[in-house]
């Protein structure tokens, strides 16, 4: 547990020291929110959620890429794969919540008559899914440019796809959109239930896939035999 907490702490420290990145991580959702604010507030909230998702998953992607050279030596230093990926994920989840909090307050003050609990749950889903998604892309694609382009593709599909279509449920952030609809348009509770279930399932699925990828990448190789000192 101590090892995992240390990795989470170092992930947070790294991120908090990148002030330019932090500013952009805040600017991205804010831009998404403000760009449609003069029209329908629901669209602004949905865009904001997508902005948070994009910002957190991009941060996760870059954090994972930056740690690629460090992780093998940490593995040799006594860390197990789950210390590394779970520690990083916890750090990013905390960072994501810190980023989401001011936007929640913004909505609470700026947009009246919403179900604010729903907005909070939608933000939670965004952060929960975004961190493992970024880590997964960073782990699978060693170069940041490829990872960034893939993430851009995913977010663009998410943005443009018909949310009522069957294919929309296959996109990672469908949950937050569904819950946001419940929160903004006061639809029936089915939206909240479906969205929450989707968010939970996607998060768990992502974590499992991340676990598999990291366990494979940082596995003990069969050709290497360790003997204790006699």
């Amino acid at each position, binding site marked *: 547990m*101590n*090892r995992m907490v*240390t*990795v989470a702490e*170092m992930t947070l*420290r*790294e*991120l908090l*020291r*990148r002030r330019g990145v932090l500013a952009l991580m805040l600017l991205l959702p804010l831009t998404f929110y403000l760009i449609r604010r003069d029209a329908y507030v629901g669209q602004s909230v949905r865009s904001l959620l997508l902005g948070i998702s994009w910002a957190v998953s991009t941060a996760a992607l870059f954090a994972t890429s*930056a*740690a*690629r*050279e*460090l992780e*093998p*030596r*940490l593995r*040799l*230093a*006594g*860390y197990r794969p789950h210390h590394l990926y779970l520690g990083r994920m916890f750090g990013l989840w905390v960072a994501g919540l810190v980023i989401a909090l001011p936007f929640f307050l913004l909505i609470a003050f700026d947009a009246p008559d919403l179900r604010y609990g729903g907005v909070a749950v939608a933000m939670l889903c965004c952060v929960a899914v975004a961190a493992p998604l970024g880590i997964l892309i960073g782990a699978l694609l060693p170069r940041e440019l490829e990872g960034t382009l893939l993430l851009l593709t995913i977010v663009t599909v998410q943005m443009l796809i018909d949310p009522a279509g069957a294919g929309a449920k296959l996109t990672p952030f469908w949950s937050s959109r569904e819950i946001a609809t419940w929160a903004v348009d006061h639809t029936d509770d089915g939206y909240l239930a479906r969205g929450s279930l989707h968010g939970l399932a996607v998060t768990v699925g992502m974590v499992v896939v991340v676990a598999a990828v990291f366990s494979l990448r940082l596995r*003990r*190789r*069969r*050709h*290497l*035999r*360790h*003997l*204790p*000192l*006699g």
Partner: protein
Amino acid sequence: MNPDEWLRAFAAELHHRRVRPDDARHVVAEAATHLRDGGGDPAVVFGPPGRYAAAIAESIGAPPPAPAAPGPVRLQARGITKRYGRRTVLRDAGLTVRAGQIAAIVGANGCGKSTFLRICAGLISPDEGEVTVTGRLGYCPQQGGTSDFLLPDEHFVLVGTGQGLARGQARRAGRAAARQLGWDAPGDVLTRHLSGGTRQKLNLTMSTLAEPDVLLLDEPYQGFDRGTYVDFWEQLGRLRDAGRAIVVVTHLLNQLDRVDAVLDLTPAGGTVRDGGAGWGGRA
């Protein structure tokens, strides 16, 4: 200090640094002649006896210490073959390193030195062959392996926590290991603000922090100035004397006289040979 006193102190310093008696006599005679012919204060002409003796000892090399009995085998790599596509990078390469030995891996660019080391560290798999490591393993990559936005102390904590060290203990161990390289690790400078050579010191310090029994170093001295480079080899000497088994990937052949065995991975080579004179010759 008059010239006679300076020469006596100089001779004593040379002896202390294990310069061969014949060489020492020759160097002292040369210095005496220079002082007699040119005059002047020897402390001004040559500097302090200790410093001048150290420079002489480094330039002509110290004799090998009495060979110690080789310790038990700590690293044994056998039949290592690695292919990338159709290209065979390593073919049936092997290396045995005992406690208290330094082995060098040499060869032309692209001959598989780093690949061999990464296979020994268990970071990549060979197509054939096996590696047995006895005791704790430490690895220093050629580049990377540090985090730009962490402090040196945080690196020590990160690595130390993996070994089960408390934070304070890890910081102290890291700073002590850094001082062995002549580096006082600053507490408030981010790694990205360190020079290339200093960052490499951090890299090296991280690999020695947990006192591994087997230490694998992939050209760890890139960016080192001459003083640090000398400190580096002295540090390796101390680790060897402390019973560590060390493998260094190197292309600086002038340092090979300080190692006990050499694995030459040049395609025509692929052989293990004794390190020769200098520090060891113990294969």
